[in-house]
């Protein structure tokens, strides 16, 4: 009898915490919204679309003007300085409202970058792009910091 009661309470705690998590994440400014939670089950593993690219290979795309560069840091960080010609695509704003941004055609080559390597935000951004139908989304492997180390062109200000 006690075991049954115990089991029911454990199940209640598990389900209530799941419910609380889903609800709070809906209103959490940096939460995982239910829409993306469902999408992540539908989509394949991000490993498929996880395309890291080195700074020098990115620079080739840059010189050939073949790729769109997007800075996924905050607007403030972007304004300080960024890769020359890159556009700002702040992570949380993009995740919350992906359709609010003026993005290029689906066939375009897109290169995202964060400041440092091993960005936790990049795989999520890439998946979101893939869900929107983009096929060639890359991520600057060692981040903006490597771009700076190589002395590749940057610019300040802008939005």
């Amino acid at each position, binding site marked *: 009898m*006690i075991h049954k*009661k*115990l089991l029911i*309470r*454990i199940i*209640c*705690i*598990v389900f*209530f*915490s*799941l419910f*609380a*998590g*889903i609800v*709070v*994440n809906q209103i*959490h400014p*940096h*939460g*995982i919204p239910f829409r*993306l*939670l469902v999408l*992540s*089950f539908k*989509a394949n*593993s*991000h490993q498929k679309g996880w395309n890291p690219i080195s700074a020098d290979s990115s620079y080739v795309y840059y010189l050939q003007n073949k790729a769109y560069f997007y800075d996924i840091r905050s607007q403030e960080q972007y304004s300080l300085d960024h890769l020359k010609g890159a556009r700002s695509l702040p992570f949380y704003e993009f*995740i919350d409202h992906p359709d609010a941004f003026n993005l290029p055609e689906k066939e375009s080559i897109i290169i995202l970058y964060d400041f440092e390597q091993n960005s*936790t*935000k990049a*795989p*999520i951004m890439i*998946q979101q792009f893939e869900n929107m139908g983009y096929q060639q989304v890359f991520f600057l492997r060692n981040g903006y910091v490597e771009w700076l180390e190589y002395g590749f062109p940057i610019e300040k200000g802008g939005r």
Partner: protein
Amino acid sequence: MKEQHLKWAAVFLRFGFGLLLIFSSYSKIIHPWEFSIDIENYRIVGEGISRLVAVWLPYLELILAILLITGIWINAAVVINYLLMQLFFLLVLQAYIRRLDINCGCFNPGGDATIGLLKIIENILFLGLSVVLLIIHFKHYQSKKII
């Protein structure tokens, strides 16, 4: 006298785990995306499950902490606490054996701390204490207090 000591030991452990779980859940609640990547880095589940866990686990920890501290549904809370500590230990252990250079996601999602021997020892300690709490609670203390 012994009963009294055991009772206080159980209360102490309940409060200890409660505070630990509040501390652990806080950063996960603030940074759910980073936490989901930390889970994914264990390479056990895919991104769907890892995001679901990132949504669910911090709140399970928080609710568990509240139950442990207040004593509401304490039997269930003590059992879940033990299962959770066992799960954390197994996850960290397998990552260590597989030499995964990842952040454990325990207290600082998206941080730089990697899984080493110290983390294993820490998890053994937490698992051991959760077993002690389980035993004290069910064998000694709980017999005098019906849920």
